[in-house]
Structure formats: C-alpha cells, structure tokens
C-alpha cells in the first residue's frame, strides 16, 4: 500500500468497454504506462473524480495482467454516472490496493473451485478466475455459475463465451432470471440452479452477488452438504478511507475495507448480522 494512504495517484482511463446497459469496464493505467500498483485477486481500489466523489471498487482484472487494471462499474449513483460518461484519456485518482484478497495462494490452492456470481457480482470473482486460469496447474476443476436478469446483463460476456467456455477443465453454467428470445441456455435464479447442478460438497466455493442471492445460495450450498468453512464471499459497505479509520464499514469489530472485503462464511457468521 502507498505510504500516504489518503493521497491518491493519478491514473488514466485508456479504454472503456460497454458490457451491459448499465455496466462499463474501464481500463486504468499509470500516466507513464503500466499499472498504478500491484494487487491480488479480491483487493479493491478507491477511484475518484475530484469534485464528484470517491468510492471503493473491486479490481476486476487479474494481477497476472501485467499491462493494466480493469474496473467493471455499474451505474447506480452520482459518481458512477459520472464515470460512465468518461472517454479514454480521462484522468482519475486512484489509491490502493485495499483489503485482503481471496486466499488464492493458501486455502484455495490445489482445490476444486466453484464460482457463483450474480450480476455485477462477477467483477471481483473475474480477477480470481483469470488468476486461476493463469496458474492452472495449481488448482483442480473449475465450475462457474453465473446468472443475471437477462442475457444483456451478463458482464464480460465475450470473455466468458470466447475464453472461459472454451477452456479445458472449466465448466461454465450461465442462467438468466426469465426466458428471453435468443437465449437457449438455462433460465432460473442462481440459487436454484446451484441446487440443480448438484455439486459434490468438496473443494472451495466463492460467492458474490446481491445480498439476497448470497443468502439463498448459502441455503442451497447447505442443502448440498457444503460446510461454511468452504465458502468465501466479498462484502461491500460504504467506505471513505479504505484503511479502517473513517469508521463506517464495520460489521461488529471487523472493518470490511481492512479485515475484509473477503470473508469466509463461518467467520462472517460469528459477526453481528448487520450488513
């Protein structure tokens, strides 16, 4: 992390990709080229437009990408609306990386992995997925269950279709909430699909999505016989500092920015239900 935690660096948006009607993926480089800093999968960064706002976003690119960092951002408020108007060449401020990554080098190593994502919840998991793909020999079988409201709301669809779906040892299971013309894949909510897929309760599971989806996915995993120690997620609460000092992203005595955002569910279960 940077020596002056509240003072950001300047980054340059070098590419803007339209993913869905309300999600864009921004590529960010340091002014002299390359990445602003190194990170691990699951870590976050504070992006800001001075005068508009500053907020925490997960870094969706994998650390194995040596050229740039990417942020998939859903338009849902003042800052994100401004970000969505950006064109390449726009400077932003960036600071980080913040938080603990998914334990890709420890607990997840050597394991079969199941990724379960809903909507924009794919963004933080994509970093892990691509990290795992780059270090394929270190991990077992990979299953990716990804759902969204409609086929137009699947983030990163070209990468999923052209890369993940075609890779040996990776099974991609896509689903959308309601039937739609031009979609011949699975239809239904993510938690039910997880139950239908009937995974063996082994390996590790990484879940990210809307809170309601996470809640029912957990029930589905319980039903399949998974233990909560096998399941990880990444949390999001309002943040201002990113370093455990501004006082607002706590769940009990843990700060999401510093002690999270990645939590194992058995540990999360020990905390007050206030998130």
């Amino acid at each position, binding site marked *: *992390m*940077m*020596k*002056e*935690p*509240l*003072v*950001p660096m*300047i980054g340059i948006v070098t590419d803007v990709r339209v993913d869905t009607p309300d999600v864009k993926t921004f590529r960010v480089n340091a002014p002299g080229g390359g990445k602003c800093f190194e990170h691990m999968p699951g870590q976050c960064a504070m992006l800001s437009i*001075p*005068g*508009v*706002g*500053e907020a925490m976003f997960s870094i969706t690119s994998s650390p194995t990408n040596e050229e740039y960092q990417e942020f998939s951002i859903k338009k*849902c*408020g003042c800052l*994100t609306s401004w970000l969505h108007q950006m*064109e390449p*060449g*726009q*400077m*932003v*401020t960036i600071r980080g990386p913040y938080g603990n990554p998914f334990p890709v080098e420890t607990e997840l190593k050597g394991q079969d992995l199941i990724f379960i994502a809903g909507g924009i919840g794919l963004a933080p998991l994509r970093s892990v997925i691509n990290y795992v793909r780059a270090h394929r020999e270190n991990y077992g079988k990979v299953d990716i269950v990804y759902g969204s409201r409609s086929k137009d709301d699947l983030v990163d669809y070209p990468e999923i279709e052209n890369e993940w779906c075609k890779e040996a040892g990776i099974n991609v299971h896509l689903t959308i909430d309601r039937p739609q013309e031009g979609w011949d894949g699975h239809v239904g909510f993510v938690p039910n699909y997880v139950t239908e897929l009937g995974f063996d309760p082994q390996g590790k599971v990484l879940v990210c999505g*809307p*809170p309601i989806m996470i809640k029912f996915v957990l029930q589905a995993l319980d039903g399949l016989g998974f233990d909560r120690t096998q399941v990880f997620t990444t949390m*999001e*609460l*309002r943040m*201002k*500092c990113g*370093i*455990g*000092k*501004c*006082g*607002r*992203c*706590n*769940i*009990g*005595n843990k700060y999401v920015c510093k002690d999270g955002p990645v939590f194992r569910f058995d540990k999360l279960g*020990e905390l*007050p239900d*206030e*998130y």
Partner: protein
Amino acid sequence: MTYQFPKANAEAIVKGISRAVYAPVEKDGLTSFERYEAGMNLALDTIPTDKSMKDVFFPQWENLMHFRVEGKTIELTEEERCHQDFVIFGARACDIQAVKVLDKVFLADPVDSYYASRREHCTLVALACDKPEDSCFCKNFGADPASPDADVTLYPVGDDYYVQTNTEKGEALVKEWNLDKAEEGPVEWLKGEIGKKYEELPFAHLNLKGFDGEHLKEKFDSPKWKKLSMACLGCGSCTFACPTCQCYDIRDYDTGNGVQRYRCWDSCMYSDFTLMAAGTPRPHQLERYRQRFMHKLVYFPANNDGMYSCVGCGRCIKKCPMHLHIVKVIKALGEEESK
C-alpha cells in the same frame, strides 16, 4: 522535578510561551481549546470544556489536498503537514486518555500523517482535576484525574500551581518559565484529596463486566437497545462532543480555482453515514445508536487489548438533549451480566 508558580501568573506564562499555545478559553459561556491570543479568557478551572481538545489533533475540518482539473487532466497538490512545535496548556486526564484512543486509530498502520505530524510537534501540559464534576467517571476507563499523563502536569493547590515535569520535552518547556523549585508534599496531598473526591462521585465505579469481545453477539442482540434508543433524535451531539469519536468524512468542494478535498467529523448517528446506492445496513436509529455504544464498549476493546473508547469525560451526559448517555447503556446492559 517539581516547581511552583502563582495561579495569577498563568496567563503571563501562556503568553510567554514562544510557540503556538492551545488552551481552554471561555467565550459567551462556552469553553473550548483555542489557539490562545492575548485578550482571550483562559478557562483553566473548567472541567471538562464544552468542546474537547480532540480538534487540535483531529480538526473538525481540515484540508487534505487540492486538485487542479483541466479538461481530462488532474493535478494534485498535497496539503502541508504540521511542521511547527506547539503546546497544549491545560489538558485534563480524560482528554489525554482520549488522545491515547485516537492514537490507536490514527497511528495504527497505515499511519495518518496529518494526525501524526500534530502529535509529534505537541508538548502537552496537563492540569490535575481538583474539582471533578458529578458527571465525571474517568477512572473507570484508565484515566487518573490526580496524575494525568503528559509532558508537564500542573497541580492546583491553594493560590499556586505546582508543576511536575514528566519528560525531556516537558522539562525543556518549563525551563523557559524560570520557575522556583518546590517541595513535592503539596502535590502528594492534592493527589490524595482528588482520590477522595472522586470516590464520592455518583458514577465513580461502573460495572464493566461483560463489555468485551467475548460477549460481542450477546450485547449486540440484547433486546434492551430498543428501549434505550427510543428517544434518540439522531442529532449527533454526542459524537461531536465526544473526545474519542473519530469517524470522518472526506468531501470535495469547488473552490472556483480547482477542487479542495477536505476531511471533516462525521457521525454514526446519521442515516446517510452508511447509505449506499443499494441501501443501508443501519436503517433505523436503533442500529445507529447501538453501533456507537457497541463500538466504544465492545468493538474497540475487542480490537485494542481491552482499551475502551470511552474516557468518562461526561460530555455526553451534559450535552445529550434527550439525556441518553453511555452510563445509562452501561447500567442497562452491564448489570444483567453481574446478576
């Protein structure tokens, strides 16, 4: 080393200090720690001041950096950190304990350099509390009104201040005052007196059993929060008056010549404190009220080897318009533990 000077000379001594001095001053019936200037009304007898000394180290508003924005480009200039020595004159034991709490937050890795630079440049002159108020309960939380922990401690005895230096920094400051040496006897006498007076205070001994990380969920889930928080207006007065409340916001404003990014005090009592596009995890005043007290009495000690982030200054007792305060919470949630 022990020295002595007449109380009547206090103003002259403050005026004579070659560095900036922050001292309790009274204006229109309210007391706060201000940068002392000739003509101000020193309030060295007030316990505690209406506004604590936290904003000497952690100002209510402070500039962090400035941006120049032109087209698609952004240029950043950091605000200068504190680089000049200064003195706080007349700090009380509770407020000093509060700084120790703030240190745990701002000096923990990664260090907040804005705060750290002020801590580094400060020489702290404390005042022993010869006349504690009924609302004082600092000893429950590790502060000692009879011997506040500072570079220099002043002990008011009769018409004099007895002066004890506790650090080299303190010794260097007191040297400038050219004081007469004194016996330690009156200081020891006063410490005894303060100890006795403290024992008579209504909240001298609170039962803090069970306020720790071990009982985190039990305290959080207590049905008593509902009744306790019912009358809370969510005004945030308790958080701003509290010497340890350090939640902050970072905001920008357009200066007409760029963007100024500043930090200001914020309050967990406010509905927008945790508000996100998707909603808030603390939608009612109950959750916000609970957060404040759980933080002070359970979360903070769980993370800091048992240190509470209440210092017993009693300001919330005096300032809450609805008379809701931490002692009520401790009594309501703590006593069930002792039974």
